[in-house]
C-alpha cells in the first residue's frame, strides 16, 4: 500500500520518473496549489523496493508492506 501525503508533496515528479516499475502517474488536474500530485495508479506492480520513499525530497511517501 502506497500512502502519499498531499500536504507535503511539492509535485517534483521524481517518484514518477525513478520508480523502476512505473507505479506512479501524474494526476491530470492540478490541485488548489497548482501542483500535479502523483497517483500510485499501478499499485499491483509495486515490489516495495522503497526507492520512492528514499528519493522523495519532501518525505511525503510511505510504502507499507502488504497485509493480507
Amino acid at each position: 500500500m502506497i500512502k502519499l501525503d498531499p500536504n507535503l508533496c511539492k509535485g517534483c515528479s521524481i517518484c514518477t520518473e525513478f520508480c523502476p516499475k512505473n507505479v506512479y502517474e501524474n494526476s491530470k488536474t492540478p490541485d488548489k496549489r497548482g501542483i500535479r500530485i502523483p497517483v500510485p495508479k499501478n499499485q499491483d506492480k509495486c515490489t516495495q523496493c522503497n526507492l520512492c520513499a528514499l528519493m522523495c525530497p519532501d518525505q511525503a511517501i510511505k510504502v507499507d508492506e502488504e497485509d493480507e
Partner: protein
Amino acid sequence: MEENNESPFMKYLRKDRLPNIFCAGCGNGIVLNTFFNGMEMAEVDFDSIAMASGIGCSSRIPGYVKCDSLHTTHGRPISFATGLKLGNPDLNVVVFTGDGDAAAIGGNHLIHGARRNIDMTVICINNSIYGMTGGQISPTSPQGSYGSTAPYGVFERPFDLAELVTAAGATYVARWTTAHALQLTNAIKKGLNNKGFSFIEVISQCPTYFGRKNKLRTPIDMMRWMKDSGVNKLKADQMSAEELEGKIVVGEFANEPQPEFSNELYNLIEEKYGQKSQAAKSAYRED
C-alpha cells in the same frame, strides 16, 4: 492511525517545521533521506549524533533534524565541529555543508580538517552554483556552464573536491549524485563507520538556478543528466581526458584508516599528565 501514513524518516524530523523550505525537486531532501538510511544501516545511535552546518541552502538541513545541532558562521562548520568533537569525543559529529560553504569561503578549514584526520563525517552537497543568493558561479561550477555572474559561460577551471580532499589526507572520500541514492546510502554508512575524516561529496540538482540557466529546467532533466554522465572511478581511471569531458566521476576515492586526531590528543594528555583529560565532558559531570 495517523502515524502509519508517515514516511519512515519522519521520526527523525522536526514535524512542526515541515514542509521544508527547499524548492520542489531540490536534492537536499534526498540527501537527508539517504543520511537517515545510512545511519540506520551503520547502526549508529541517533542520540549520539551532533550536526554542524554553515550558511547556504544545504546548511539548513540540521534545522529539520531532531538532534543537537549548530548553525554556524559562513564556511566554518568544520572548525566548530572540531571543537565539538574534542569537547566530547563520544559524539558522532556530522557536518552538512554546500559547495560555497566548503570550497569557497571555508576551503582552508576543509583541507586542514582533512589533514588532521579528525573523526567527523562531512557531507558536501555540491549543486555547482550559489543557490541561496541568486545563481552566482561557485568554485565547482563546470567549465562552460552559465550563471547570473557568467552570462557567456564559465571559463575558469572548477575544483575537483573529492580529489582535493583525498590529496589533503582524508581517510574516506566518496562522490555520488542524488540520482545514485542507494550507492550514496552505502557511502554514508561507510563514512559514519570510518574512524577519521570522512568526506562525501554529493552532486545535487538545483533546478531553480543551475537548471534554469543551463537548459535543464526540471529536477527530472537534471537527475537524468547526472545519471547518464556518471562514470565509476574504476572505469574512469582507464579513460582518457577527452573521453571524460562532461562526465561526472563517481565512486570511492580513498578508504584507508590512519591515526585519528582526537584519539592521539587524548592519548598524549594521558601520557604526559598520568590521568585522563579533565576538560573532556566537564559539562556532563554530575558535580
